[in-house]
């Protein structure tokens, strides 16, 4: 039971981690809490359903289901990247020199707008993710894990690892770190700040889309409001791990998922959504900058 809950927690935690990466990257560079990020995740889930639907109609799912799913992931990530790119250009960039509170309020505005936009175009009721993939159960030592869970855990670990490598090793990744530390200096060295910020939004939004589609497959249902709670929890995960830190976001996501899953089964599942914040408060009291946050 205990280890079973940990397994389930790691699965959800992987999803939180993927969303948390977007928060942490944007915060690291702009010191902005991008409240619209949860909505990108929600849109990613919807797009997943839409693309699977399209592939069913054109018969691709009959040809190869894994291919249809893979293509849906890629297209959903691309569309969400376009959303993230556009949101930054329209809602945040014009406010870059404004007081800190202004882009924050703009972010809340974008979030509310996107929720309503999806509600109006997709309806207020739950949408079902078509059950096209048979997941098999793997049993070992009394524990059960589905192939879908394995897929979610591996995907989130792999994407986090790739992002970490990208930021540490590539030219653009290093420039992202430079911009996060000193924007003016970065521009004095010839780094195009606007481009780096766009890349940050594109990557973060793509990862959120992957998370959204995985959740849609895992729970089978999506709703226009799922971005709100998931967004706040992923933000909590980012803060927990140390905002601005990529390994921190991953660690925070997994801890949050595990704690939530254990608490829901041993304490009470009624308060499931509150445990994330209890653990956040406890850790911030001990380590105000988060687990892997930089001390100053």
């Amino acid at each position, binding site marked *: 039971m205990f280890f079973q809950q940990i397994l389930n927690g790691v699965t959800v935690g992987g999803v939180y981690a993927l969303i948390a990466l977007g928060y942490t990257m944007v915060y690291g560079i702009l010191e902005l809490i991008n409240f619209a990020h949860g909505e990108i995740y929600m849109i990613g889930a919807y797009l997943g359903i839409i693309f699977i639907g399209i592939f069913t109609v054109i018969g691709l799912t009959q040809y190869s289901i894994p291919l249809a799913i893979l293509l849906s992931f890629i297209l959903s990530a691309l569309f969400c990247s376009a959303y993230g790119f556009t949101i930054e250009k329209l809602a945040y960039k014009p406010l870059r020199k404004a007081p800190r509170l202004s882009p924050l309020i703009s972010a809340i505005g974008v979030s509310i707008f996107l929720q309503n936009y999806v509600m109006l175009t997709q309806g207020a009721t739950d949408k079902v993710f078509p059950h096209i993939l048979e997941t098999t159960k793997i049993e070992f030592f009394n524990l059960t894990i589905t192939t879908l869970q394995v897929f979610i855990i591996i995907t989130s670990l792999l994407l986090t690892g790739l992002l970490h490598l990208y930021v540490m090793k590539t*030219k653009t990744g*290093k420039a992202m*770190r430079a911009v996060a530390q000193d924007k*003016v200096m970065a*521009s004095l*060295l010839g780094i195009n*700040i606007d481009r780096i910020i766009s890349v940050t939004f594109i990557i973060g939004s793509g990862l959120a889309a992957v998370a959204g589609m995985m959740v849609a497959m895992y729970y089978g249902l999506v709703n226009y409001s799922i971005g709100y709670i998931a967004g706040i929890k992923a933000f909590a995960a980012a803060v927990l791990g140390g905002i601005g830190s990529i390994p921190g976001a991953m660690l925070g996501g997994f801890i949050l998922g595990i704690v939530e899953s254990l608490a829901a089964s041993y304490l009470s599942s009624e308060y499931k959504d509150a445990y994330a914040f209890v653990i956040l408060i406890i850790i911030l009291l001990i380590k105000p900058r988060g687990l892997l946050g930089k001390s100053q």
Partner: protein
Amino acid sequence: MLLLKDIYTFYGHIEAIKGIDIYVNKGEIVCLIGSNGAGKSTALMTISGVLKSKTGSITFEGEEIHRMLPHRIVAKGISQVPEGRRIFPKLTVRENLEMGAYTKSSKLRVKSEKLKRQYDKVYEMFPVLKEREKQMGGTLSGGEQQMLAIGRALMSKPKLLLLDEPSLGLAPIFVGKIFKTIKELNAKGLTILLVEQNARAALKLAHRGYVMESGRIVKEGEGKKLLHAPDIKRAYLGE
């Protein structure tokens, strides 16, 4: 090579530069001296495009650059070592240099054969940077940071180097080394616009100089002449 005409720069409503004209010829060392708050750093930031002038124009090699974004101006061949060095503390020494080479390196990779020579040149000039290659920038001493800042600015192979108080806060032995480096770079063909508090050393080194006071140029002329002008002696050389 560089020509500033009728430049007015504001911070909000504060007028920091009140109409200055400056020119720098190819191959020159030109120095800009003046007391604290005169607007020297503001002038350099305006050249680099970080701050924008309300009026006038800045041309570099015949091309107007005052509407360009800072990264475009770097690509044109103007590099700045700003006041306070501004080393990236959480990047290694090597990564700091790689960022300096940002405009010269290929899209994906920071390494290339062509660039290797430039790294070697900088390491030859400042061997300590080679020793500290893997260390975080923030852990270097002030003097080492200044060397890194200059080395980093050279990585983009600039035609014009803007230096903002490179000797500030350094021990005399380092100050001497920095001024020697400036002289050597100039001898190799680099044009330099130098902002300095250390007016005596700067005027000795420079071909020409400008004196700034509360946002205006109050005097200009050959370095040696300024060095011996009575009013300059009194105000800036403490004689």
